[in-house]
């Protein structure tokens, strides 16, 4: 085991958020009601995803500077883990949407933006698999990864806030900002986000080490 401390902290923080996320008292919100607790579970998936992608973005830049193939493997491992969180976020969001908006999917800018983001990152893997030469593969996918990260920020961070969106926290809806004022929620949400990011880092590090093992 390498660097056990952050893994233990991650497990403890997530466990804390899972348990106390159900026990904490919540603000009285119309329509959202008890599902505000999804803030600890669904929203933390997206935060973990963005963190993984930010990591892969940083390693992509690092790769282009030094052209070290180990760095490229870190990028790929982080992007794969980010995709896991993206799909978990997408599916948990769909469950919530079904019982809040009455449909599994709506043409909401936030939802479509996250779907486009997932498609952009899926193309990253297709691009990687399409190139035989290791160096060429690493270089081209690093450039693409930088592009993908910027697109992600635009599609899930900027566009939904500029147009009307039904999603909590967007388009003037009561959401993240008003929950943010509630310290009861903050006390569980922030540890959940940090915990999931640490768990994601752990998963990504395992994938990275497997990649190193399977090569040579």
């Amino acid at each position, binding site marked *: 085991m390498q660097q056990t401390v952050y893994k233990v902290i991650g*497990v403890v923080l997530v*466990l804390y958020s*899972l*348990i106390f996320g159900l026990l904490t008292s919540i603000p009285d919100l119309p329509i959202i009601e008890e599902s505000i607790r999804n803030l600890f579970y669904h929203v933390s998936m997206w935060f973990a995803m963005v963190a993984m992608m930010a990591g892969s973005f940083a390693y992509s830049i690092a790769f282009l500077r030094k052209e070290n193939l180990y760095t490229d493997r870190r990028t790929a491992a982080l992007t794969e883990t980010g995709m896991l969180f993206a799909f978990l976020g997408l599916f948990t969001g769909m469950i919530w949407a079904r019982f809040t908006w009455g449909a599994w999917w709506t043409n909401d800018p936030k939802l479509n933006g996250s779907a486009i983001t997932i498609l952009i990152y899926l193309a990253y893997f297709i691009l990687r698999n399409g190139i035989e030469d290791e160096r060429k593969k690493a270089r081209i996918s690093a450039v693409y990864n930088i592009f993908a990260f910027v697109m992600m920020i635009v599609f899930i961070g900027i566009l939904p806030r500029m147009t009307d969106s039904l999603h909590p926290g967007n388009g003037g809806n009561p959401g993240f900002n008003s929950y943010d004022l509630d310290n009861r929620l903050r006390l569980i949400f922030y540890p959940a986000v940090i915990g999931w990011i640490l*768990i994601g880092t*752990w998963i990504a590090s395992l994938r990275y*080490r*497997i990649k190193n*093992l399977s090569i040579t």
Partner: protein
Amino acid sequence: MKNLFLTLTATAPISLLAQSKNFMYSEGKIYVVIAVIAVIFLGLAGYLYRMDRKISALENEK
């Protein structure tokens, strides 16, 4: 007194039993759900831990 309690609980309907003072029965059994979630998550964490150990072993072999 203990016998009285036993006869009461033995004949009491389930709902009455559920309202007993036991911690796990309180709050509509939400703690049972929490225990289930905790077991699942700890199981997954343990799985990650075992995988980590196995990868370390493979790395040491190399």
